[in-house]
């Protein structure tokens, strides 16, 4: 279909896809590429990049292989990003859909609830949640999901409201279909494109959030992640810049890739807007 055609012509999106595939490949193949695990102390600490053969990115404060940490960190960052986005969608989509579709008190209630969550500074809430549930991949993922669903709910609500006004929904009502069926079969499929676009951007934001939490020492101590690496290395940033530099770059690349893909998807899925965007 023309979706791929449009997506393919977007250089940024292609760059994003290539970068992301690279990151995913590294994440998947980490145990194959690196004989040492991310926690294994293999050499003197604070070795600079390329100082010793086989340690292209040097070693960290305990003499662990930074390259291996980076690769294993990709797994955690991507996993947290994906799962938390999924959970956020699971909260936000139904809530937004119900609010937008049924309107009235349902809408009022759902939107108050959403506003309420948007009023609490989200990062602060995430910190408190993680601290309370104690840092673990599960609690971090959940906390990120809890602070990121409100925009989803708002988006879905707005989309559903606009789709709901379209005449084919009236037609379905006249066909005697039940409200639920109309919402699920007729309305929701038409809100998928913007949700996909938003989801791709949310994965990026979630990766940033996870790294920020880890940086503050609220990461899962048993999971090597990029934020953990930066947090662990920030005290030695003066003497061993590479320890915080490489994970920082890894985050930037991944988040950038996801953003590029998100924009590409946006352009390709909403061609009407994209033409305006480039006009």
């Amino acid at each position: 279909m023309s979706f791929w055609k449009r997506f393919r012509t977007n250089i940024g999106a292609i760059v994003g896809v290539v970068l992301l595939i690279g990151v995913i490949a590294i994440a998947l193949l980490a145990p194959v590429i690196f004989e040492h695990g991310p926690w294994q102390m293999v050499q003197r600490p604070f070795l600079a990049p390329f100082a010793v053969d086989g340690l292209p990115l040097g070693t960290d404060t305990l003499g662990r292989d930074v390259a291996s940490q980076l690769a294993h960190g990709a797994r955690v960052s991507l996993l947290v990003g994906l799962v938390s986005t999924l959970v956020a969608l699971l909260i936000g989509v139904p809530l937004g859909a119900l609010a937008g579709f049924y309107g009235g008190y349902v809408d009022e209630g759902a939107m108050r609830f959403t506003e309420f969550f948007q009023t609490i500074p989200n990062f602060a809430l995430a910190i408190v949640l993680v601290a309370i549930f104690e840092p673990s991949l599960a609690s971090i993922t959940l906390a990120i999901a809890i602070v990121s669903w409100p925009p989803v709910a708002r988006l879905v609500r707005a989309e559903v409201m606009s789709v709901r006004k379209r005449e084919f929904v009236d037609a379905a009502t006249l066909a005697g279909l039940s409200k639920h069926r109309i919402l699920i079969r007729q309305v929701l499929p038409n809100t998928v494109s913007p949700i996909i676009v938003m989801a791709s951007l949310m994965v990026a934001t979630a990766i940033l959030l996870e790294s920020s939490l880890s940086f503050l020492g609220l990461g899962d101590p048993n999971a090597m992640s990029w934020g953990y690496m930066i947090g662990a290395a920030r005290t030695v940033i003066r003497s061993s810049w590479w320890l915080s530099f490489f994970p920082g770059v890894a985050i930037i690349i991944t988040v950038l890739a996801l953003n590029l893909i998100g924009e590409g998807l946006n352009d390709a899925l909403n061609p009407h807007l994209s033409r305006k965007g480039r006009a």
Partner: protein
Amino acid sequence: MSVLAIIAARLFKAALTLLAIAVLNFCLLHAAPGDPAVVLAGEAGAADEQMIEQLRERFGLDQPFGVQLWKYVSGVAQLDLGYSFRQGAPVIDLIAERLPATLLLTLTAFVISLVFGIALGVAAAARVGKPQDSLLTALALLFYATPLYWAALMAVLVFSVWLGWLPGFGYETVGAGYTGFDRALDIARHLVLPALTLGLFFMAVYMRMTRASMLEVSTADFVKTARAKGLSGAVIRRRHILRNAILPVVTLAGLQAGQLIGGAVLTETVFAWPGIGRLMFESLAARDYNTILGVFLVSAAMVILFNIVTDIVYRLVDPRIGARA
């Protein structure tokens, strides 16, 4: 409906929201493992049952949960945020002491990000498709993808340590005895790095938004009308496109106030900025419930304030809203 009436209605709603936040967070925090009495006793260097019991009694932790909740919420309703036993001071005093720093930081970052974001967005949109546009867009994407704390670390490293241009942390030069303008200048110098790092991300957000919005509006019919009138490109951009394009950006900016204040926690930590974000983070580790709750309430109030302000700005810019309401 007059602006005043709207503000009154919004404030009423805000009060309800804040009360709800008080209740929810109170429950949340009390679900947390870690007993403030134990922590405080622990910090004393030695603790025994007697001391912990004493502390619990003082904190009111020996009372049933419902009683504690009721006491807290009814206190909040009377603007009493409780007492921080760890800091030995009323929470409202602690926050009042720190709030100006946070307000200064977030407002400056907000203004910087909004002004520069919009300016750059306009500049990029005006040169759409040209190398300058690509450069600005790429920069925005880069800022957008850069972790806030990482940017902060790098900024301190470069501007404070290597170049020595700006102080890398703190709110003002301690004990320098500056007054009046000198003090303001001193604080301003300290403000530069934290406000810039905090603002950078949001600047990128607003820039992208402004650019997209400008391009969207520039295809509107009334822009064609303006061109048909013989207006020059610059006039059309300024008078017609920008004013309309800015509205969604203002809305977004208001909605993101919460994120901005959340981001202040990170910035305040890296830059030793004595604001409420740091107060919260430090209080969390001590399970200083009342202080955390107080910070939550005050920052939520700030978010609401930002929202109301953007709302009013919106009304001022867009004549349709006030009349319709």
